[in-house]
């Protein structure tokens, strides 16, 4: 099969986002789409999925014009989509989510045993047999939810599979399993569209790469004949000299010490130190307990035992407010669920953690607030640079920047970042790495939790590795390899 | 008021303890509260009577249920204060089946399926008020009418129709009826009156289907500074209304529909029936019009209502 887009235009509320996109996807090939945050990738995908109507141009399937009046039309054609923003019904079971709208029936009634069996088989096929189809989707970790999304897209054999940043929450073996799956589907003749900001992945999995900038296609490249640098240059419109800043580890005095921290059933006996001016990475597979450690340190959850010391004194954060007051900040991993109030604007979302601080006699100092927000918009390059826009209308990467901005405004002494670059484009990542590097110069201690191995090693001074809720290794970033860290995380001696 | 059946008959039933159920349609309005209280107070004058009072909270189905509940508890007789209900066939069927006497107080049900009824003659109440208004206006002027609620409550309808029957005989009297309902309450009466005042340059008299509404209306009139322009006439004999009449305000008259009298008479009638008497089926009570001249005969500062 061959799918062509010709001059596709799409806008929201009068502002055009796609200005005439031409694109060709073919069965048995993986087409990667790269582009900066807000370039219009997700919008393009929504057009293809029939989720939003297009404003102009046409879509041709094997040479014939198509009209997609709704998602059901696209699905009828075998176009399946994994959206960037998780779209599960949290109250429903995995089975129901996967077979949403297509539950098997017997004599008009849903045949639950057939349904569960089908979903179990599907999960097995994509390598996630350990997900229980009868569990509520909302109970799964983000990574597992992502795999459920993928299973959902495969519930019907697709002719075309569109994946919008499927890897943002995956790491290590999970990622390998995803790639295996993609390759198998390619062999079966499925057309695959793959969107990701992790260019190494893109180079590995794709047959060709289309780069989009500001809603226009700027070039289509072949991985064999291009480089990450070239793609970044096309996306950003400038060359990036260096991705990770050079770091000479100069840890100051210990700021935060975690001692024997445990939370029943999640993680056990975790101890580590963060020193002023240091960036410490934390790596682990999905569900290894990294996020939970961060939340307990921050007072968002209660640990069952263990202590947290700040400046050598034992402290007890009962609420996140206590932690913020003491200068600890946590950029949470799931922006939609725990990071943003989607319906509220950039200003509010950026200032939720600091609004009491900029109040005088109970009244917000709105000038100062506006100035703070403006400053953050400029420093992080939030696009569009409009503080009054609801964050719901920002692209995924820009939403992530808003979360970062909120925590940077608290001027933390200890900054915990849980997957902070999830969905963030390369150019912006570089800005973020530079920014945290600068923060350490001011004596801030940073814990960077990430599932991106390259990032974990590139941006940090040393790396803690977690496995099954325990801290299993600590290595210096400069003296180790990706393979070694990965080996620690899966428990194979390197 | 008049104790038509006579309490003295009750003594004959003093042998065993009697349980009398009261099925109240609603105990939200003071009028009905007062009536339920009167029944209970009167019951205390008999040594052998226990009263079980239920409240359907304005729900006809619940009244039916409550009646069934009472029958379940094997009451000897049921007094029904049916509020705005026109009939309650299912409840009355159940009572009939159990062969228990039923006394209706205030509210008469259509269909005649009850032992005895004691209550006001609402048409007469309206007529009395109408006569007072027609006399005082000397056949000329504008009369505003405030109704309580939808016409499924024939209490109000009877009062207004009684009034109009008299007033319409004087062609010089223009009647304006408020399009919205006063909901039988003071705040409702106030709001309806405010709208009437906005719409009508001149009003000579106001009639409300009950006192509560006219108390609110009186306030609206005084707020608008038009107290001297008009007088108010209503029905029930609520003690605040009697006080307003007594004080010589523009609250001129009200037709008595005495909850206390009706309640007491209702219980006495029940006792009489239980003692084997066969009283007259329907007993409409007199509804004298109270004005400043005779108000001292009716006001009782201790009454609830």
């Amino acid at each position: 099969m061959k799918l062509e887009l010709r001059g596709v235009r799409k806008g929201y509320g009068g502002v055009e986002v796609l200005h005439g996109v031409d694109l060709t996807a073919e069965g048995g090939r993986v087409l990667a789409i790269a582009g900066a945050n807000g370039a219009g990738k997700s919008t393009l995908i929504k057009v293809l999925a029939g989720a939003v109507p297009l404003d102009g141009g046409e879509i041709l399937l094997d040479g014939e014009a198509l009209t997609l009046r709704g998602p059901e039309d696209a699905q009828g054609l075998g176009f399946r989509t994994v959206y960037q923003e998780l779209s599960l019904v949290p109250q429903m079971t995995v089975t129901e989510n996967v077979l949403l709208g297509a539950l098997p029936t017997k004599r008009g009634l849903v045949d639950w045993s057939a349904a569960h069996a089908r979903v179990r088989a599907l999960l097995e096929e994509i390598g996630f047999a350990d997900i229980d189809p009868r569990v509520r989707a909302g109970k799964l970790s983000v990574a597992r939810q992502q795999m459920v999304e993928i299973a959902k897209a495969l519930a019907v054999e697709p002719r075309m599979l569109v994946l919008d940043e499927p890897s943002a929450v995956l790491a290590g073996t999970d990622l390998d399993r995803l790639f295996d799956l993609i390759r198998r589907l390619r062999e079966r003749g499925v057309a695959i569209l793959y969107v990701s900001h992790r260019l190494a992945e893109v180079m590995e999995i794709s047959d060709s790469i289309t780069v989009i900038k500001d809603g226009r296609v700027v070039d289509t490249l072949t991985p064999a004949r291009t480089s990450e640098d070239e793609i970044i240059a096309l996306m950003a419109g400038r060359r990036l000299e260096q991705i990770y800043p050079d770091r000479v580890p100069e840890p100051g005095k210990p700021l935060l010490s975690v001692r024997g921290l445990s939370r029943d059933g999640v993680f056990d006996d975790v101890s580590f130190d963060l020193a002023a001016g240091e960036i410490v990475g934390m790596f682990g597979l999905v569900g290894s307990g990294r996020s939970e450690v961060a939340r307990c340190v921050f007072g968002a959850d209660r640990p069952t035992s263990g202590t947290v010391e700040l400046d050598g004194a034992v402290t007890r954060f009962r609420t996140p407010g206590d932690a913020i007051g003491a200068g600890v900040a946590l950029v949470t991993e799931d922006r939609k669920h725990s990071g943003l109030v989607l319906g509220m604007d950039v200003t509010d979302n950026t200032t939720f953690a600091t609004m009491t601080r900029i109040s005088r006699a109970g009244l917000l100092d709105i000038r100062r607030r506006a100035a703070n927000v403006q400053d953050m918009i400029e420093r992080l390059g939030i696009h569009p640079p409009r503080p009054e826009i609801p964050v719901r209308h920002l692209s995924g990467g820009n939403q992530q920047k808003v979360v970062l901005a909120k925590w940077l405004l608290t001027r933390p002494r200890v900054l915990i970042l849980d997957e902070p670059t999830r969905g963030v484009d390369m150019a912006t990542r570089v800005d973020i790495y530079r920014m945290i590097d600068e923060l350490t110069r001011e004596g801030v201690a940073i814990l960077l939790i990430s599932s991106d191995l390259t990032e974990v090693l590139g941006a940090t001074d040393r790396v803690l590795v977690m496995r099954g809720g325990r801290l299993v290794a600590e290595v210096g970033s400069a003296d180790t390899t990706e393979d070694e860290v990965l080996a620690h995380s899966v428990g194979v001696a390197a | 008021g008049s104790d038509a059946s006579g309490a003295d008959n009750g003594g004959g039933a003093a042998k065993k303890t009697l349980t009398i159920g009261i099925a109240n349609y609603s105990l939200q309005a003071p009028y009905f509260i007062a009536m339920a209280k009167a029944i209970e107070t009167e019951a205390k004058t008999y040594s052998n009577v226990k009263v079980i009072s239920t409240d359907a909270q304005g729900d006809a189905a619940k009244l039916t249920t409550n009646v069934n509940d009472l029958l379940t508890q094997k009451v000897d007789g049921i007094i029904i204060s049916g509020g705005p209900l026109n009939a309650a066939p299912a409840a009355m069927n159940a009572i009939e089946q159990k062969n228990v006497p039923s006394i209706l107080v205030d509210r008469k049900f259509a269909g005649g399926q009850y032992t005895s009824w004691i209550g006001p003659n609402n048409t007469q109440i309206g007529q009395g008020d109408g006569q007072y208004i027609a006399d005082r206006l000397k056949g000329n002027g504008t009369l505003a009418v405030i109704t309580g609620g939808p016409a499924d409550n024939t209490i109000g309808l009877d009062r207004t129709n009684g009034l109009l029957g008299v007033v319409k005989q004087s062609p010089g009297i223009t009647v304006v009826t408020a399009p919205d309902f006063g909901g039988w309450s003071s705040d409702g009466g106030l709001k309806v009156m405010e709208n009437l005042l906005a719409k009508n340059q001149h009003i000579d008299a106001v009639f409300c289907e009950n006192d509560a509404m006219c108390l609110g209306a009186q306030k609206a009139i005084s707020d608008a500074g038009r107290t001297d322009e008009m007088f108010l006439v209503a029905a029930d004999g609520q003690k605040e209304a009697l006080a307003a009449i007594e004080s010589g305000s523009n609250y001129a008259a009200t037709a008595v529909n005495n909850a206390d009298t009706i309640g007491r008479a209702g219980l006495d009638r029940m006792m009489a029936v239980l003692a084997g008497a066969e009283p007259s089926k329907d007993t409409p009570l007199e509804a004298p019009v109270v004005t400043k001249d005779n108000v001292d005969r009716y006001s009782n500062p201790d009454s609830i209502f």
Partner: protein
Amino acid sequence: MVLDTDSGEVAGAAAPASARWRVAVPSPTVLVLIGAAVAIVVVAGVTNDSFLTEGNMTNLLRQMVSTGLLALGMLLVILTGGIDLSVGSVVALTGIMSAGLVSGLPLPLAILVAIVVGVLCGTVNGVMVARFSLAPFVVTLASMTTFRGLTYVYSKTPITPTTPDFLTLGSQDVGIIPIAAIITLAMFALGWVLINRTSAGRALLGIGGNREAVRLAGVKVRRHLVLAYALSGLCAGVAGVILASRVGIAQPSVGQGFELDAIAACVIGGASLSGGRGTIGGTLAGVVLLGLIDNLLSLYDVQSYWQQVLKGLIIAVAILMRRGERQNT
């Protein structure tokens, strides 16, 4: 197993054949409610002579019919994240129409027409909500007023049905079980099948849980929303006819505030007003609990005002017993 302790209501229905028995095990919410109800029944049975009598049981059942039917329809709407405030007015409209129509039409036809009117009312709500994306609260608030007005336009005065047969539906019993209660229970059973065993029912839950996700999965969201409101109208229509038949006279003013009891039953039974969560079993338990409270407070001769205070407190305690339910999830 452990993971889904507070989701038994949804997950339970989705149990595979191998664990089919789980279907029969009610969720913790329902268990708590059943426990409360049983405790109440036992205490009442011991301390009150009238409570466990046949007559009172029949009464109790009959009393639960209106709230039960309305709560059933309400649940379907609540599952989608909506609300239907108009049910009380639909009860009045369909009740008075059925009572009025029997004078001209054969009894079954009159009842049918009245119920169809109920379905139409619900459909109007559904279309407004689905097609024009309007807030269900306001739509049904507006239609509550409109339908009530139409009831008075149909007849300002109560209508006593001319056919004595009309009273059968509401008053006749089979043994000690009223026909009306049997109809209600049958409708609950159908509701259970709808919610747990049909894709339409699952779609209703999904719409309340994440409307966009369901839409993107190709489910026709609007059509299902209309269905939910239409069924709520249907239930209200049946309740209206039964109520008129039970009282023996149809009043245009009937049904005010019924919607609150219906919603309360659903929420006490574990339904979430944000949608996506709620069960037939829980709702039924909620209906029973509310019915028991009313029945007992009046059997124990509690003063009407204190009845209100107590009723409020009992509802509060009932929901306190199932803590853990979060306001927005």
